Every structure is written in C-alpha cells, then in structure tokens.
C-alpha cells in the first residue's frame, strides 16, 4: 500500500510538503479571507505516473540524500578551517569591567497576569507591554503612569511592538493575528474601535516588529513561518519558510546593515533571512533546545541568542559560526530574552530562575547577577538611548534597571 503525501505549491512560493489534514485546513482558512475574494483558483491533481515522469533521473531520493550529507560535512569543514582562535582569547588583553551596580529604578504595576512582552518607544520614555490577561498597556516609564490600555479579544498576548513614529502599537498572540492600534491623544477614546488587523497566521503569533517605518510589520508564528506585511492594506509582502517548528523570536538588523533579520525557533535553529527575496541566507544550529530570543549585536555583524538549554550564544555572521557561549554550571534554567548594551560589550539575559545575568561579551564571563523579580523573566529590552533596560516578568510587573 502507498502512503500519500501532498505538495502545495503556487506560482510565487516554494513548494511545501503538507499532510492531507494541513492542506484541507489551509484551504478552509484561505478561502473565506477577505483578501482573497478576487482571483482564480485552480485545484487539480495529477496521477502518480505523471508526477514521477517529471523527476530527473539523477535526482533520486538517495542521490539527493547523499549530496545533502556531503554538503553538510563540507559546511562543517569550511567553518572549522576558519576557527583559528576563540573570542575570549582575542579579548585577553582587554581591560576587565569594574564592579557593576544596577538597581531597579522603577516598578510598573498594573497587569493582572504574566507579562509576556514589552517594547520601548523611540522617545526613550514610553513603553508598551502585553500580558497573559489579554491587556496591552502603554506606560510612561519616568512617572510609571499608564497612558493607554487595550483589552485584546484573546489571552496570552505574546507579542507587542511600538511603531517608530510612536503613534501606534502592534500586538497579537493566541488570536493568530497581529493587530495595529493607533494611539490617540484623547484618553477617553476607545482604542479598540480603530484596531486594524494586519497579519494572519495559522498558529499563534510569537513576535512582531515594525520595520524602519510604520508601514510594514514583520511577524513570526507558531506555524513555523515568518512574514512581512503591509500595514495599510494587510497584504502579505513576503513569507519566510525554513524553520521546521514554531518560530519564537525575531530581530531586525540595524538599519545601516541592510535588509536582513534573524529568527529563532523550537527547531533549535537561528536563521538569517533576506527580507526582499525571502531566502534564508545563513543558518546556525548549535543550541540544544528551543531558542527563545535573538538580538543583533549593535554593529550588525553578529547576533546573540538565549535558549531553554540555559545558555546564551554569540554567532558571528562573517565567520558564519558560533564564537562564544555564555553559560555557567550553576545556571540550569532557560534564558528567555537577551539584549546588548549600546557598545555591545554587555549582554543582558533574563532567565526562568527569576534572575538577570549580565555577561561580558568579549571575555565570556558573568559580570553581575540582578535579583528582584519574583517569577520568570520573560522579556528584556534596552532603552533606545542605552541608559537603562526594562524587564518584564511572570510576577505581573515590569522593572526599569539603571
């Protein structure tokens, strides 16, 4: 007996092998969507004999598998050849960092459940945060006042982002969507009324980020894909396929370094993508568990990742390999979020053991450990001018450290 699998392909996308159940649910999902009311759909099947006629004689499965193995070995060899020294060896002559004192300077209280995500506004004082209780709150971090609050129609709002203009916020989670809310100066106005649904995935939204303008949003999802959307029309501009499991995080390259972004997923891989072509240009697989957070080094030549394997790692894009691991035997809980200081010398990691570890990026040593949260640290971002960072936690609060 033959087992049938299905291949979904369209004229402008890469073919994907899907099970029958996935194909059916994809069709049911796509047909009613408002963006698809115009256009012609053709669905037809070909007999198995016709399908096999298209296969090139030298591209049988075994040959391809062999070539794949050869290429993987070749990649490992190429990367190993250039591995002539460790980062911390190069940094031996650098002065060590002095004693590092950072304290909680503000505590933002108001969420009714776990804080899952936060983002800074470019004005360096406003913050947007989202929570398991379905609420998205905009705070003034200087005064700790709440400026806006939105109740989402779903719980577990896992992603939120501030627009570059400071005039809107985007958020989403278990509703599988990313919605944009324009922020009104009128405190009494109901923000939910002006909500715009932008992104639609087939599983939960794990992360979102505006690109350089308010006009485009990049999203990542539990459906294993990332996507770039036009905010005004809700149109899908580009989709990124390559992860084999849920994508949990993404970060855009600093604008000077061009149109790329990095994503991390439950398949333990971190992928670097070209935003225009949709192609995966580099892939790194050295973590031993889910990658919860990725963040570019300020120069754009490297990125850090935090994972459930209790390590943070630094990957250099030009050397195309991992160049540092930030770990200690005493750290056994996963890292949920990472961010760099402005110069890239410090790496802040929020962990599931309620602490924040501060690492010397060059020397690979831990500089400080910050206590204060009473539950997992779930999100962490440096302020735009680098004077402070904000952490959000399952203890329902956000803390500003400086």
């Amino acid at each position, binding site marked *: 007996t033959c087992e049938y699998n299905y*291949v979904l392909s369209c004229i402008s996308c890469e073919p994907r092998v899907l099970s029958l159940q996935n194909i059916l649910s994809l069709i049911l999902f796509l047909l009613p969507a408002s963006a698809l009311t115009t256009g012609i759909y053709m669905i037809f099947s070909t007999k198995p004999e016709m399908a096999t006629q298209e296969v090139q004689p030298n591209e049988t499965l075994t040959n391809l598998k062999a070539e794949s193995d050869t290429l993987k070995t070749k990649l490992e060899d190429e990367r190993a050849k250039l591995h002539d020294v460790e980062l911390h060896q190069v940094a031996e002559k650098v002065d060590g960092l002095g004693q590092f004192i950072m304290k909680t300077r503000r505590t933002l209280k108001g969420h009714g459940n776990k804080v899952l995500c936060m983002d800074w506004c470019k004005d360096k004082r406003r913050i947007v945060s989202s929570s398991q209780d379905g609420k998205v709150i905009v705070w003034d971090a200087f005064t700790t006042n709440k400026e806006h609050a939105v109740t989402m129609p779903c719980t577990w709002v896992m992603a939120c982002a501030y627009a570059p203009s400071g005039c809107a916020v985007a958020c989403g989670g278990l509703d599988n969507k990313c919605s944009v809310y324009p922020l009104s100066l009128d405190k009494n106005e109901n923000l939910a009324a002006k909500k715009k649904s932008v992104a639609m995935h087939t599983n939960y939204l794990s992360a979102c980020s505006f690109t350089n303008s308010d006009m485009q949003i990049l999203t990542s999802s539990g459906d294993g894909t990332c996507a770039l959307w036009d905010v005004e029309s809700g149109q899908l501009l580009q989709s990124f396929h390559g992860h084999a499991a849920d994508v949990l995080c993404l970060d855009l390259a600093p604008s000077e370094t061009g149109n790329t972004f990095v994503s991390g997923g439950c398949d333990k891989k971190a992928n670097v993508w070209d935003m225009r072509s949709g192609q995966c240009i580099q892939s790194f697989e050295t973590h031993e568990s889910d990658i919860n957070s990725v963040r570019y080094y300020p120069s754009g030549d490297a990125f850090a990742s935090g994972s459930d394997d209790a390590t943070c790692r630094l990957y250099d894009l030009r050397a195309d390999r991992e160049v540092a691991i930030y770990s200690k035997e005493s750290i056994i809980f996963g890292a949920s979020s990472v961010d760099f200081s402005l110069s890239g010398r410090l790496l802040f990691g929020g962990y599931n053991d309620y602490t924040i570890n501060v690492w010397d990026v060059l020397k690979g040593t831990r500089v400080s450990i910050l206590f204060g949260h009473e539950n997992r640290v779930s999100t962490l971002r440096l302020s735009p001018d680098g004077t402070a960072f904000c952490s959000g936690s399952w203890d329902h609060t956000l803390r500003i450290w400086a």
Partner: protein
Amino acid sequence: MCDHRCFVYEIVKMSGSSNLVAMKKIVQQLRFEASINRVKVSQAAADLQQFCMQNALQDPLLTGVSSSTNPFRPQKVCSFL
C-alpha cells in the same frame, strides 16, 4: 512577491517517498550556504572587539551616568534653607 490574491494552487498526489521535493529544497539551500564567503574567527573577533572599544565611551551603562543625565537615577533632593 507573494500575493494571496493571485495564487494558483496545485495539489499533486505523490506516491511512495514523496519527500523528493522537500529533499530537493534542502539540497538547494545547502548548496547556497556552502558557497558563501567566510572570514577567520580571529578577524571577526578582532572586529567585534574594535567595535566595543570604539563605542565604549558612548555606552551609558559602561561609563555610568550621573543622575543629572540619567532620568531613571534618583535625583538629589533639594532642600530650602
């Protein structure tokens, strides 16, 4: 560009080992990744270090910022005599 409005869907039944298309994609991706130019770690590490050093003075968390310029640090309290 991937525009939902002009998709043409083609569902193809493939018998037996239907992972052929997926495998082709994997090999194509690996060929691409194998072809990129790489630099030595010593060079890359030196560049990372240089960036840190060049920007160290502009990093408020490294240099420490006084309360007058860091809005989050507590201000000294003024007292009227």
